[in-house]
């Protein structure tokens, strides 16, 4: 341990209850300047709760916190910021109705007597964005940015004020590798300046690369703190899930279908807003990966396939031309779509787990005269909860109170119930912990083995490499190449994605 460096922020015996839920118990932590301290834990372990306590969103139920040796009791995020603790939240907290600049400078707008100096505001925001090297226009309305761009704006907002401690709660979950690189450069600069960084991520490679110290928590309780140099991914995973995990990417259960198998889905010359002339096919039991940088148009293509966007071109399902003008038609044609933004497009956060799981497959549970068959629905939902190991106290729990990873599994469960022939997965493991990730990969494998054709959109290169039989490379709305398994190496894939391949 680097006892030499002083502790800037510490907490001892901190606990937090939400009604009956004990989100944190006897948590402890010591954060040092100039070091990246990662908090590692499964979904729902209490990481975000911990961070929210640190910035005054929630008051702790017990325990004490110290900042530079003095007792620290933040009353609000603003109070925390004033004391030098800044945060980039896990759930995006931007105002879609305002511009990037206005969001970044929110609550510390340059002003005199309450009058905002707009020119100054834009200049400062633009300078910050340029300084950080972020590819966003400060005058753009946030509502029109892609998720990844919003994540970058969120980071810029967190960095817009000098901080002693910067908290980053899963900042890379919506970023692809090249954007993540931008963030890592920023982190290195901050470290050099002596800023302490509290970091949360589920990506093990990234954690091992970035961290100095790693604290593992499980079920809201402190487990251990390790220095990066003294530990290994295997040890960390064992500490985190309480058992050993040797393999992250499960092996194929059945061999990939050969070219003799007729495609389940064929797309020919699909064009629409944000993409053009996309042609590919996918066979039953095959996993076709889609890789590209953020904004390369993958999500737009998938939405179009699902009937959620204007498009031209031909789509063949099982060899027959299909006209898909709405999600209802897409579902009827056997397509499922795990969308990338679970909060907005995936879940009804205010509804319970059961209706969320059954919502895409409702016709299955309709009896005569439209009456719901509750027993059937409950059994089906329960099966999915068990199969995906979703951590929820009951089927009647409100979906919005579950941790991010478990919410993601519910979205997956919802689509599994429709028994799709073609399943589109758009960033299916965003924000999911390694254990859950493994389970999701295992399910993807199972589905493939059962003959489902799978389109896997992911910005995580290891994920695509680990799962896909072939990879379609997208860049600026065009399909650059489709590589077969034998051609897949990280270097070749990145070269195609960034357009440096000739």
């Amino acid at each position: 341990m680097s006892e030499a460096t002083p502790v800037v922020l510490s907490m001892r015996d901190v606990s937090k209850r939400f009604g009956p839920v004990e989100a944190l118990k006897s948590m402890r932590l010591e954060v040092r300047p100039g070091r990246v301290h990662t908090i590692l834990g499964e979904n729902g372990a209490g990481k975000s709760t911990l961070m929210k306590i640190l910035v005054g969103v929630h008051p702790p139920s017990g325990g004490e916190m110290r900042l530079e040796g003095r007792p620290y009791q933040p009353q609000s995020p603003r109070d925390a910021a004033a004391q030098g603790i800044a945060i980039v939240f896990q759930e995006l907290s931007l105002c879609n109705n305002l511009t990037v600049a206005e969001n970044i400078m929110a609550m510390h707008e340059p002003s005199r007597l309450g009058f905002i100096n707009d020119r100054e505001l834009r200049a400062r925001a633009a300078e910050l964005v340029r300084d950080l090297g972020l590819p966003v226009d400060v005058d753009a309305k946030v509502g029109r940015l892609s998720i990844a761009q919003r994540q970058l704006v969120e980071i810029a907002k967190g960095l817009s004020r000098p901080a002693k401690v910067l908290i980053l709660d899963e900042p890379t979950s919506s970023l692809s590798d090249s954007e993540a690189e931008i963030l890592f450069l920023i982190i290195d600069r901050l470290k050099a300046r002596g800023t302490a960084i509290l970091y949360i991520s589920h990506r093990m490679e990234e954690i091992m690369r970035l961290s100095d110290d790693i604290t593992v928590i499980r079920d809201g309780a402190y487990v251990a703190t390790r220095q990066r140099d003294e530990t290994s991914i295997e040890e960390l995973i064992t500490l985190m899930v309480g058992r050993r995990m040797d393999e992250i990417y499960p092996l194929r259960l059945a061999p990939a279908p050969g070219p003799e198998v007729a495609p389940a889905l064929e797309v020919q010359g699909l064009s629409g807003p944000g993409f053009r002339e996309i042609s590919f096919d996918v066979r039953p039991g095959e996993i076709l990966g889609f890789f590209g940088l953020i904004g390369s148009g993958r999500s737009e293509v998938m939405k179009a396939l699902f009937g959620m966007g204007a498009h031209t071109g031909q789509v063949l399902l099982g060899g027959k031309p299909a006209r898909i003008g709405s999600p209802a038609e897409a579902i009827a044609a056997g397509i499922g779509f795990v969308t990338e933004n679970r909060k907005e497009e995936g879940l009804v956060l205010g509804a319970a787990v059961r209706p969320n799981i059954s919502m895409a497959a409702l016709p299955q549970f309709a009896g005569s005269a439209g009456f719901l068959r509750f027993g059937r629905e409950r059994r089906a939902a329960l099966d999915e909860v068990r199969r995906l190991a979703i951590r929820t106290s009951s089927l009647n729990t409100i979906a919005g109170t579950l941790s991010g990873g478990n919410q993601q599994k519910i979205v997956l469960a919802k689509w599994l119930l429709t028994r799709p022939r073609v399943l589109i997965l758009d960033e299916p493991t965003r924000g999911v912990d390694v254990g859950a990730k493994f389970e999701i990969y295992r399910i993807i494998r199972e589905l493939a083995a059962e003959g489902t054709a799978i389109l896997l959109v992911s910005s995580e290169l290891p994920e695509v490499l680990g799962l896909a039989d072939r990879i379609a490379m997208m860049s600026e709305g065009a399909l650059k190449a489709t590589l077969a398994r034998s051609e897949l190496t990280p270097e070749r894939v990145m070269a195609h994605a960034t357009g440096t391949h000739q």
Partner: protein
Amino acid sequence: MTQTTDNTPRAGRQQLVVALHQYGGILVSLVLLCVIFTLLNERFMTVANLTNILQQVAVVAIAAFGMTWVILLGEIDLSIGSIIAVAGMAGAQALAFGVGFVPALLFTLAAGALMGLINGVLTAKLALPSFIVTVATMGIYRGFVSLPTNGAPAMISDASWTAIGSDRLAGIPIIIWIVGVLFIFNHVLLSRTTFGRRTYLTGGNREAALYSGIKVDRLKIAIFTLSGVMAAISGILLSSRLYSAQTNAGMSYELDAIAAAVLGGTSLAGGVGTMVGTLIGALIIGVMNNGMNMLSVPYFYQLIVKGLVILIAVWLDVRAKRRQG
């Protein structure tokens, strides 16, 4: 961490507990009001008066059932007061035309459905906020109601029509039968069918519902149409009770209907609410109006008390729900 449990189908007693949890706050208000009025006036707690209250509350309650659907979807329908008036006038005109009772009834319901449909289509297909659509149609329908008679009321002398509002069936006023049947209809439709489920889901998150294959536009149109039909039934009852169609009938009833739904725990953000709650909410409003009349509370004080009771009841309810976490 907690284990996934599967609740077994709820037994009778357990259901009571659930109901108390869900409606505790609002039931307290209703019971309290009844107790106060009973203490202050011995004639309040009589069968005659309770029948009275139910009859008086019928018009608003039925409109509130329709409003509950609309609010569950996260929308609002301010035109129902005008639809109530148009329905009465449509019935009166059809009867005056001599088409007979049943055709007049069907014509009136069709008129209600059409007006609701227009609201729904404008909201869904033009993607306009329902608040503004129904503010506009509120004026338009109110204008239409006055065209046949140039603003004057239209007398209704058809015996079957007026019987709805004044006769009894098996000792119970027909109007109460109608409220009962419509309550059960709406309650079952909402809580037991896929249509109801779709309404909750769409109200909870429109985008997610759309991605899950729910035809959101169609659902919206269906629900505004349903609301129009409920308002038309309200209008039939009202005109039947008054033996005439008034051109200013139902004015500002939309606010009473909304108040009933919200008192009953329906969230204006959509996705949360029940018909049971709305019925209780409507009863609170009815009991309050009746009780204060019985006590000869002057009109202006009635306005004040009514506002205060709504505030307190909603507050009690919100607080009770928050306690349960």
